[in-house]
C-alpha cells in the first residue's frame, strides 16, 4: 500500500477492510457489538480467530525464513517486507476486533488500551529511526554504484589501475561508512593511514555522513526505546481476562507482535544504539509463542555469529554488501597490472555479484521505506481512533 493511500480524516472505519478476514463475519460482528454490556459467547469466535491469525502469521514467516530459495531468507529485504505486511494486516484485524466494543470504556480495558496506545507511540520513534537507517543503506548503495561504474567492463576496454583506484576509493569510503558507531574511531585512523589519503579531507566528509544522518538527538537510543515498548508487557491475569470478556488477550497479543516487529527492524536496519536485549516472556499456551520465540532465537543467533557481531545491521543485503565489497577490495589490493585472464574473470564475477546486490537493494529499499511509513500511519490512526472513542463515550464522574 503506497504511503499516499493514507486518508487522514473521516474515512469510515471499515474502509480498509479489504484484507480483513473478518469481512465475512462483518454482519456477525456488527450484530454482537450492538448488544449491551452483557456480550457473551459471540466474541469467542472472533478472539480465537485473531489468535489463530497471529499464529499463522508467525508460522509462515518462519517457514519462509527456512525455505531453500534464497529470496525470503531470514532478515532479507523481502522477508522484512513480508513481516511488515503481516503486521499491517494483523493490526487491521485488531482494529476491527476492538471496534465499537463497549468493553473498551470499562476497566480493565480502558487501562490496557491506554497502555497499548503508549507502546504504539513509542514505536513511532522507532519507525522514524528506521527511515534514517534506510537512508544510510541508500548512501552505501550509491557508493557501490561508483564501484560498479568504475569496474564496469561494458566497452570491453581492459581494466586498468585507474579504474581500480577509483573503485578502491569508494570501497574504502564504504567500509568506513559501514563501521558500527562504536568502532569507528580507531579503525578510521588505521584505514586512512594505509591508503595515504589526505586524512583531514577524507575524514571530514565521511565522518559527516554518520553524524548528520541521524535525525534524532545523540541521546536517543533504539535499545532504550525497545525496552520502553516492552516494559510491563505481561500476559493478562485471569481476573482481567474475565472482566474484559476475553479482550485483554488480543491487546496483549498485539503488544507482543508490535514489540517483536520493532525489535526485528532494529536488529536488521542501522540505527543509533542498537541493543538487542529484549526478552519475550510469552506463556507457552499461546499458539504464536513458539514460532515467535524460534524466530527470536534465530535472529539472536545471527547477531552472535563471528562475521556479524560488529555489523551495523543484520539485514542480509547489508552482509552481502559488506562481503562483496570486502572481497573486491582484497582483489583490488592483490592485482598486478596488466590483469591476467584469471584475475579478469574473478573481477568480473565479483562485480556481477555486487551488481546483483545493488539491484536487490535498489528495488527493495523504496518499497520498504513506504511500508515503514505506512506502519507509522496506521499506528497513529489507531491511536487517534482510540482517543476519540474514549472521549466520546466518557461519562462524567
Amino acid at each position: 500500500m503506497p504511503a499516499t493511500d493514507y486518508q487522514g480524516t473521516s474515512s469510515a472505519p471499515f474502509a480498509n477492510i479489504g484484507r480483513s478476514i473478518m469481512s465475512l463475519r462483518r454482519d456477525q460482528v456488527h450484530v454482537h457489538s450492538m448488544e449491551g454490556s452483557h456480550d457473551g459467547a459471540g466474541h469467542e469466535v472472533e478472539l480465537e480467530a485473531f489468535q489463530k491469525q497471529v499464529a499463522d502469521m508467525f508460522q509462515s514467516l518462519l517457514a519462509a525464513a527456512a525455505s531453500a530459495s534464497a529470496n525470503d531468507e531470514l532478515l532479507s529485504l523481502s522477508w522484512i517486507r513480508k513481516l511488515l505486511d503481516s503486521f499491517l494486516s494483523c493490526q487491521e484485524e485488531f482494529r476491527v476486533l476492538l471496534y465499537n466494543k463497549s468493553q473498551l470504556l470499562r476497566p480493565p480495558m480502558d487501562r490496557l488500551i491506554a497502555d497499548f496506545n503508549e507502546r504504539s507511540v513509542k514505536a513511532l520513534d522507532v519507525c522514524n529511526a528506521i527511515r534514517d537507517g534506510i537512508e544510510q543503506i541508500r548512501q552505501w548503495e550509491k557508493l557501490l554504484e561508483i564501484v560498479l561504474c568504475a569496474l564496469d567492463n561494458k566497452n570491453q576496454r581492459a581494466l586498468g589501475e585507474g579504474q581500480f583506484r577509483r573503485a578502491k576509493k569508494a570501497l574504502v569510503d564504504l567500509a568506513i561508512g559501514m563501521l558500527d558507531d562504536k568502532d569507528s574511531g580507531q579503525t578510521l585512523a588505521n584505514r586512512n593511514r594505509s591508503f595515504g589519503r589526505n586524512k583531514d579531507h577524507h575524514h571530514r566528509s565521511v565522518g559527516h555522513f554518520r553524524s548528520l544522518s541521524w535525525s534524532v538527538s545523540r541521546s536517543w537510543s533504539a535499545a532504550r526505546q525497545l525496552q520502553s515498548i516492552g516494559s510491563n508487557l505481561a500476559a493478562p491475569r485471569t481476573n482481567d481476562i474475565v472482566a474484559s470478556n476475553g479482550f485483554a488477550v488480543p491487546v496483549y497479543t498485539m503488544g507482543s507482535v508490535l514489540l517483536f516487529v520493532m525489535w526485528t527492524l532494529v536488529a536488521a536496519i542501522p540505527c543509533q544504539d542498537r541493543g538487542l536485549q529484549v526478552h519475550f516472556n510469552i506463556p507457552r499456551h499461546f499458539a504464536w509463542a513458539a514460532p515467535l520465540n524460534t524466530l527470536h532465537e534465530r535472529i539472536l543467533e545471527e547477531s552472535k555469529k563471528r562475521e556479524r557481531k560488529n555489523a551495523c545491521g543484520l539485514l542480509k543485503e547489508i552482509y552481502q554488501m559488506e562481503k562483496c565489497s570486502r572481497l573486491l577490495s582484497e582483489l583490488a589490493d592483490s592485482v598486478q597490472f596488466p590483469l591476467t585472464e584469471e584475475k579478469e574473470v574473478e573481477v568480473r564475477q565479483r562485480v556481477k555479484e555486487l551488481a546483483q546486490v545493488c539491484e536487490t537493494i535498489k528495488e527493495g529499499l523504496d518499497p520498504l521505506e513506504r511500508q515503514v511509513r505506512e506502519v507509522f500511519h496506521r499506528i497513529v490512526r489507531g491511536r487517534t481512533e482510540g482517543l476519540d472513542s474514549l472521549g466520546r463515550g466518557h461519562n462524567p464522574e
Partner: protein
Amino acid sequence: MELPESNSTGDDKSVGFEAAKKIILRWDSTASEDAKEKMIFESDRQEADLYLQAVDEIQRSLSNASLSDDRSKATTIQIAMARLEDEFRNILITNTAALESESLTDPTSSSSVHSHLSSRSSNFEPEEEFILNTEKLLELEHCESADSSRGRSTSSIREMDLMPPEAICDLHAIAMRMISAGYLRECVQVYGSVRKSAVDSSFRKLGIEKLSIGDIQRLAWEALEGKIRRWIRAARVCVRILFPSEKRLCEQIFVGVGTSIDDDCFMETVKGPAVQLFNFAEAISISRRLPEKLFKILDVHDALMDLQPDIEVVFDSKSSDSIRVQAAEILSRLAEAVRGTLTEFENAVLREPSGPVPVGTIHPLTRYVMNYIGLISDYKQTLIELIMSKPSTGSRYSGDPTTPDMDFAELEGKTPLALHLIWIIVILEFNLERKSKQYRDASLGHLFIMNNIRYIVQKIKGSPELREMIGDDYLRKLTGKVRHAATNYQRATWVTVLYCLRDEGLHVSGSFSSGVSKSALRERFKTFNAMFEEVHRTQASWIVPDTQLREELRISISEKLIPAYRSFLGRFRSHIESGRHPENYIKYTVEDLETAVLDFFEGCVVSQHLRRRSQ
C-alpha cells in the same frame, strides 16, 4: 592561456597530451607531499586554468586514442578526478558558512502579539483543582503574520547568495569535467555531504532541535509552547530562504550539465533536514489532546498551510515527491488534532468538577470558557474550514441526565463552528446548573446562575464575531435565562420576607369593631425584622459583579419591598405605637430599608445591625 612547450615534437596532440599528463601527475596527492599540502584552486588563477585545460586535454585524447594507450590515460584521468574531487570539496568547505543570524529572519512576517485576556480571574482559588488550566490560557497569544496572504507565495520566497560567484564558477568548471568523465556520482556525493553540514549548522542557529516524538510528549507545556513559536519562525526561514537558496546554488553550479542533476544534488542536501523539520510538526499533531494546546496547534497548522504553496514551488521535482506528500499528511493530521482537541475541550468543560464559588460570583470556569471562545473566534478563519461536523454528544434528546440536550433543528443554516460554540455554551450552562445546586442557600444558587449567564451574555455582546456566529436568537434565550434566574432569586429570598407584610391573618374576625390581633402583628414585625436582618447580613456579602445588573436587581427588590413595607407601616403602625416598646417592633423606617438595600451584593461584611437613621 597556452600550455608551456616542454618538448619539440611536431605533433600538437602529443605535446598537448604529454604536458597535460605531467601537470596532472604533478598534482597527484598520493604521490607527493607538496601536492597534498597545497590546493590548486587556492593558488593563483593560472594554475587552476592550466589544470582544467590539462584535464580537458586528457579527456579529448581518451576519445581519440588507440586501445594501447587507454590504461595509462584512464589512470591519469582517475588521478585527475580524485584531485578534482578534493579541490571541489575544498572550495565547498572554504566557502561554506552557516548563514548569519541576521539573514535568518523572515522578512515577510512580523509577529504581532495580541493578548486576548478579557479579565484575569481575581477570584480564582489556586486550591481548586482544575482540569482546564486557566492560567495557561490567560497567557495565550495569537501570532499573526502581517501579510498572511495565501496567494502571494512566490513573492515570499527569497533566495540568498550562499557563495561568491568566483567560487561558483570554479565549482561549475570542476563539475563539468567530473561529469563528462563519468564521475557524476562522486561529485554529487561530495556536494551533498558538505552542503548538508551547512544546512545542519543553519538549523542549529535557527534553534531547530533533534527531538523525538517521545521527547515532545514529555515536554512541559510552557517549554513546548516556546519551541512551537521558534519552530514556526524557523520553518518560514527554511522553506522561504534556506532551501530555495540551496536549490539555486545547485542550479548555478550544475547548470548545463544535464537534466535533474541539480535536483539530485538539491535533494541530497536538503531531504534529511526537511524531513527533520517536518517531523516536529508531525509530533505536535500526534500529541495528546489537551484543551489548552488548541491554539498553538492552530498556529502550527496555519503556519504550515501558509507555507504550502512555497513547499510546492521549492520541492517541485519528482524526487522530492515524498517531502510534499509528508507535508500534506502532516497538515491533515494537524487538522484532525484541532478537531480532536476541540472535542476534548468540550468534554473537559462538561466534566469539570469543581464546586461553586463563594458569594455567588463568576466562576473561573466561566471566565476560562469565555476566554477560550473568544480565542476561537479570533481563529475563526481557519477553524471555520477545519470544523466540519456538528458536535457529537447530546445531539439528540438522549434522555441522559448526564449530558445536556440540544436541538439542532432550530439552528439550521449555522456553520458547524457556530454550532460548536453554541454547544460549548450549552455545556457550560449545564455544568453551572450542576454547581448551583450545591449551594445550601437556593437563592445564592439562582444568583450564581444569574451572574454567570450574564457574564456570558456580556462577553458575546462585546464581540461582533462571536455575536454573529452565535446569533441573536440564542443570545435572546440566554438573556431570558438571566431574567429568569433573577426572578427565581427574588422568589426564593423575598417571598417569605414579604409574606410577613401580608394583610390576612391579622384581622380578628367577628365583631364589627374590626380588630387587629396585636400579638400577631407584633409577631409579624419581629419576624420581618429578623428575616430582613438575616437576609441583609447574608446578601450584603454576596456579589453581583455587573454594575447594571446589580442596580436593576436592587431596584427590583426595592420596588417590591418598599411599597409593601410602607403600606404595612401605614396601616398598622398605630396599633404598635399604642402598645408598649414600639421600638422593638418598628425598628426601621422606610428610608432605613431603602438605604439597606443599597448594601446588597456589595460583597462586604456589614455590621450586625442596620443603620437606623431615624434614631
